[in-house]
């Protein structure tokens, strides 16, 4: 088991009796907006700490882990990711430097860009990308870091339906091929039904359905 939540309460936003997430599984989190999905996702990388109850990661309480080390294993892509100043290559190299990773080759950066359907030169300014392109760059940045668990908050919210399908397939293939665990908030029940092993519906801060 990768995660276990027991009697978790976070402010007046979330109340979860019990929940488990299996390792190497794909979990979709759905529900109406404002229901607490992002807050819920942040419990898994300790960006939010439960006021009551316990969150376990690999059978240890989450606060047993150093938060930074935990976030390098359980990496989150927020709904509105920020691209860093500089070029596309800078966006990759900066995060590698800041997270003490060895610098990868430009070929690897290029490969990642093409994976998320960004066929631009590496020296292109990141600020010039459209909203959807920035989201894909941020996704490629997470894949570069190669974490064990990916927490993706609406990773395709700024994409048209064709690109959305394509990008989600890229993510799902990446997760399956590399035996990762994925928790993904999505507005699309279709995507959830097509790809997820487990679907959690959150409404008003509570789990309405878990199947």
């Amino acid at each position: 088991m990768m995660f276990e939540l027991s009697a978790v309460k976070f402010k007046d936003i979330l109340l979860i009796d019990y929940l488990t997430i299996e390792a190497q599984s794909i979990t979709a989190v759905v529900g109406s907006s404002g229901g607490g999905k992002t807050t819920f996702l942040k419990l898994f990388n300790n960006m939010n700490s439960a006021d009551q109850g316990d969150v376990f990661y690999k059978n240890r309480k989450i606060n047993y882990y150093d938060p930074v080390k935990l976030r390098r294993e359980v990496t989150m892509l927020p709904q509105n990711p920020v691209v860093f100043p500089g070029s596309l290559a800078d966006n990759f190299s900066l995060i590698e430097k800041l997270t003490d990773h060895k610098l990868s080759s430009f070929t690897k950066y290029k490969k990642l860009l093409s994976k998320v359907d960004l066929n631009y030169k590496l020296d292109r300014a990141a600020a010039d990308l459209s909203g959807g392109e920035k989201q894909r760059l941020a996704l490629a940045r997470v894949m570069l870091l190669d974490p064990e668990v990916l927490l993706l908050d609406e990773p395709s919210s700024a994409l048209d339906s064709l690109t959305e399908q394509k990008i989600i397939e890229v993510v799902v293939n990446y997760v399956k091929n590399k035996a990762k665990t994925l928790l993904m908030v999505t507005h699309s029940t279709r995507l959830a039904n097509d790809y997820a092993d487990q679907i959690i519906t959150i409404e008003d801060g509570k789990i309405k359905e878990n199947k």
Partner: protein
Amino acid sequence: MERQIINLQLTQLIFAYLFVFILLVIVKKKQIGQEKQIIIASLRMTLQLIIIGFILEYVFNNQNPLFSLAILILMEIFAVHNIYSRTEVELQHDMRKIIAVSMFLGTLLSLAYFIFIVVQLKPWFRADYFIPLAGMLIGNSMTGISLGINHLLTGISDKQQLIENYLMLGVEPEKSIAEITQQAFYNAILPTINSMLGMGIVFLPGMMTGQILAGASPLIAIKYQIAIMLGILGSVTLTVFFLIKYGAKTFFNSEKQLKL
């Protein structure tokens, strides 16, 4: 020609108030307002300087380490209070503590070095040197910290989303705000650097002017001015360094989450 101090007579001093009168006339005519503020500021300045004049006269004539230390501590307390009131947002308790500790530590270390190593003041508490030197170090460090803390606070509040992005990717909190802290440090020491650049060309600094008016040779005055400028640079650097090193940590909790 022998240089002597020209002692201003009361009547001469009264002539100087003509400048306030001119300001009041302009402000009134242009309907800018603030006449009351200008009068209060002029009166406060006069009263405060009269009081400090008598206090310093007494302290200089009755040299005592306790007097020098008491005035030093008073200056520190006023400076810290001034920083609190000049900060644009409400400061948290632990940040207030860090500001006070940084001010005391940075200025006292620099002052001790300046008094014992540079000037080699004997006795070390000689008030006519000790108090003005301490005042200059504390005053400039106060400005430095005020600039540094304001930049730090606005920087973190404006870039909250970017910082959280960094944290989610597994970046250490300190590194996630490195750009902001570097800029805050630079902003804090910039006035001192600018003042060094313009010194002697754009303006004659206060301490040097004072010594020259008091009859000292300009060659002696510049030596003191150079030394005190370097002392100020050291004091501002140290206080702002302590502020940023320890203050930056107060923006994160024990779970390395950004708390705003």
